[in-house]
């Protein structure tokens, strides 16, 4: 099998780079037709090899369709098509020319099954096929694939590719891929040592992975060099790991901050023990779901904008519900903070069940827009886009809130009203307005937190319950009534948690964090950023 592949790939590459594909379309069709009779993954795999061996760049299309599970066989005539599902039917396209070839009912076509092994085979084949592609990104991906699947036969095509490569980053990766292949070839030891050095320079986990497998099979100087390089990389990686854990902590902190920040208003500022806070977050998440649902069915092109659209809506929905709760329940309870616990607990039960009745008890799908998907590397740190955006978002919300609280008359009135409602009224402040709007603001912020959390967590009626305890912990740990406290509290809890986790495990880590909170409060009985002064030191 390896032999076939080697020959195939070499051939194919030569042909492809010369861009003189003349394997003949008819031949290709004949091979593709074999999919209809192939049974089981290994036979399909063989057909894939045959196709790849033609070296014709045309095969890229049917192969990637196959990898994506989009290759179909029409049962009536056993013809192979690329298919695109559209409701109950499948639109068919010619596998080579991509011409539309009509439609078929789902039941009349059979999808060609792929499994992981097959997908890997296809990916490898495509990797080599696309080494000469126009788009540098595609070439980069191809080089990446070849790095991960070293093969002595790859050396020559890679040499050719390196010679003609103009983009530096692609070239570097091609060289590493070549080095990887050198290591598994029977090239002389000096070549191999150079290869080890080249790969070692990557300094990342993939390099370790590759060198480890070399280490296992090699001997002599190469083995020693590999071992030394692995040790070397691992020691720098350990540092990066620490950095990575901090980043995880920061990103967990940003989630905690988002979840808690609305509560910092309704509870921290207004003193309402708002047990329905989590449900406000949930409402925000469901708003996102509904927005995406509408977009999916009516304006699919807007999907990447879905979160942007959902943000104001989630704010409004949650704020409106908050307004109703405040006017309907909370306003009768000022001066009786403990009873807000009872009432808002009731409200939270009602909201949960309402959502369950309307949307069903199961998870709803909220997708990630493309700009929130995937990750990028900074050095050896892998940073996922969604976490980064959530961090940015959390800090932005925090900044805006801080501005409102400290720099606007509304913020001043809010604080005055919650400090002494009766006296604030005597200062001419319309307390009912301020109360209602403040609670709505806190709820609205919880709502937009829901938009962000929908990106990383379940959107289910239980969503809120998962955050309520953490939110209270953060607000209280930071010091009630102090927004900065909430910020610092969220990040410190996040970071401590994530730094502990790799050593203690998630469960024990969490227990340790809780115990630390208990101990910390003994040291600072009014939280991290305690409100100070005579008034509070009663």
């Amino acid at each position, binding site marked *: 099998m390896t032999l076939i592949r080697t020959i195939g790939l070499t051939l194919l590459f030569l042909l492809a780079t010369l861009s003189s594909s003349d394997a003949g379309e008819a031949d290709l069709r004949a091979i593709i037709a074999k999919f209809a009779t192939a049974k089981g993954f290994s036979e399909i795999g063989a057909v894939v090899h045959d196709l790849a061996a033609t070296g014709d760049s045309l095969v890229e299309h049917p192969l990637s369709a196959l990898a994506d599970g989009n290759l179909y066989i029409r049962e009536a005539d056993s013809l192979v098509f690329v298919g695109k599902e559209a409701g109950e039917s499948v639109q068919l396209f010619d596998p080579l020319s991509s011409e539309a070839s009509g439609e078929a009912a789902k039941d009349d076509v059979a999808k060609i099954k792929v499994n992981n092994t097959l997908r890997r085979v296809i990916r490898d084949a495509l990797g080599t096929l696309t080494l000469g592609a126009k788009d540098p990104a595609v070439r980069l991906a191809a080089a990446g694939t070849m790095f991960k699947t070293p093969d002595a036969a790859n050396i020559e095509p890679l040499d050719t590719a390196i010679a003609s490569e103009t983009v530096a980053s692609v070239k570097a990766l091609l060289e590493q891929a070549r080095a990887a292949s050198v290591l598994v070839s029977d090239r002389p030891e000096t070549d191999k040592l150079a290869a080890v050095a080249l790969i070692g320079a990557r300094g990342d986990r993939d390099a370790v992975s590759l060198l480890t497998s070399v280490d296992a099979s090699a001997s002599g100087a190469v083995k020693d060099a590999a071992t030394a390089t692995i040790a070397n990389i691992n020691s720098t990686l350990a540092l990066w790991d620490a950095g990575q854990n901090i980043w995880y902590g920061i990103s967990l902190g940003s989630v905690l901050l988002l979840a808690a920040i609305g509560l910092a208003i309704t509870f*921290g*500022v207004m*003193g309402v*023990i708002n*047990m329905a806070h989590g449900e406000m977050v949930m409402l925000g998440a469901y708003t996102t779901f509904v927005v995406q649902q509408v977009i999916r069915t009516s304006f699919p092109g807007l999907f990447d904008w879905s979160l942007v659209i959902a943000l104001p809506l989630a704010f409004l929905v949650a704020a409106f519900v908050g307004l109703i709760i405040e006017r309907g*329940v909370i306003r*009768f*309870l*000022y*001066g*009786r*903070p*403990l*009873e*807000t*616990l*009872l*009432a808002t*607990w*009731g*409200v*939270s*039960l*009602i909201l*949960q*069940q*309402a959502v369950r*009745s309307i949307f069903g008890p199961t998870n709803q799908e909220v997708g990630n827009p493309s700009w929130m998907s995937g990750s990028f590397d900074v050095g050896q740190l892998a940073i996922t886009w969604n976490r980064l955006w959530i961090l940015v978002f959390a800090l932005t919300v925090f900044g805006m809130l801080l501005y409102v609280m400290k720099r606007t008359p509304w913020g001043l009135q809010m*604080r005055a009203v*919650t*400090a*002494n409602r009766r006296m604030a009224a005597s200062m001419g402040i319309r307390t009912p307005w301020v109360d209602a709007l403040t609670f709505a603001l806190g709820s609205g912020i919880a709502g937009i937190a829901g938009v962000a959390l929908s990106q990383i967590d379940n959107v289910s009626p239980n969503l809120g*319950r998962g955050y309520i*305890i953490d939110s*209270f*912990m953060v607000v*209280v*740990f930071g010091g*009630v*009534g102090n927004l900065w406290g909430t910020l610092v509290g969220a990040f410190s809890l996040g970071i401590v948690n994530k730094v502990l986790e790799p050593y203690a495990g998630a*469960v*024990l880590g*969490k*227990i340790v964090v*809780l*115990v630390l*909170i*208990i101990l910390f*409060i*003994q*040291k600072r*009985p*009014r*939280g991290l950023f305690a*409100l100070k002064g*005579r*008034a*509070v*030191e*009663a």
Partner: protein
Amino acid sequence: MISGRFFAAGADRRIAITIFILLAVAIIVPVLNLAVSPTSAFYIPSYIVALTSKYLCYALLALSLDLVWGYCGILSLGHGAFFALGGYAMGMYLMRQIGSRGVYGNPILPDFMVFLNYKELPWFWTGFDHFWFAAIMVLAVPGLLAFIFGWFAFRSRVTGVYLSIITQAMTYALLLAFFRNDMGFGGNNGLTDFKDILGFNVQADTTRSALFAASAVMLALAVFITWAIVGSKYGKLLMAVRDAESRTRFLGWRAENVKLFAFTVSAVMAGIAGALYVPQVGIINPGEFEPSNSIEVVIWAAVGGRGTIVGPIIGALLVNAGKSWFTGVLPEFWLFALGGLFVAVTLLLPKGIIGMWDSWRGNVRALRVASLTEEAGTEVGMASAASKPARSPARNPGEWSLSGPEPQAAE
């Protein structure tokens, strides 16, 4: 003094009546269950006995919470932990009573230890084959935890929300810890499959009735003790600490000790409740440490009326009966009903059922007094004795009042 107070009028008479009812029920219910024919109209089915008995345990838990919350302003959001610890102590005894009747027939190790490959009983399980030992542990474990926890927290002057949240952190940490199979308490499944208690089959109707009676008597006893505590000078002090902790210090009282005593007593009561609960429901698992359970206890007390003795009992009975009933008849909508009930109680009965009852009665009496005296042309004292500002739980500063709408600064 105690006996004198006991038969006095008003609130104290209510305590007497409550105790009397509980003791009566402790006798009557078992009799109606065991001695009356199932076809009779007076027959009380076993499952009602089991159910009510469970509520009585909850009532005891609610009462224990109210001792610290209602009378001392310590809003514990972790009282479920003491309940659960008491329950675990009892559960461990019950596990040991299974002996070799477990599925693996191991005479020493409970089933979960067998399939998790324990080779011997962990050290902390020793002694639990004796009832007396377990009984001591039922009191000692929650009591000791509360004592240690309270010792540090009260000494550091952790109050208000901060205290509430660390009690919540405590129960949450225990929840996670008990989830761990490595802890040796059966992990998430907890302890189940009990066979006997003190040699009697836990499933037998007579045992159930006995447990029912025990729960009722224990609750009666707790009512009596709480009442005695609350009515004593110490009780007044407790409330003084609730209302103006620092002021009591300037009078020379050690507020932290005042709180610590109540907290510990309360935890022991909660532990007893848990211990009675476990043989009756047949399982104890970490779910009992769930923070939301503890919050529910707070809610029972609030619904019934905090800062009263009978209130939390009524609240616990009512909310749980409501829950049992609603989950049966309105399985899909009961959360609306229960949630609605909580909202309605807060809005319509701000001091809980008992509190409202009192102020309603109080007002009626007060208004009557006022009108009578006015008719008689005599002067009304500015604030006549009849006005009951109530030892209102709401006016409870320094507690959850954060930025201090009603600051109690001792300037």
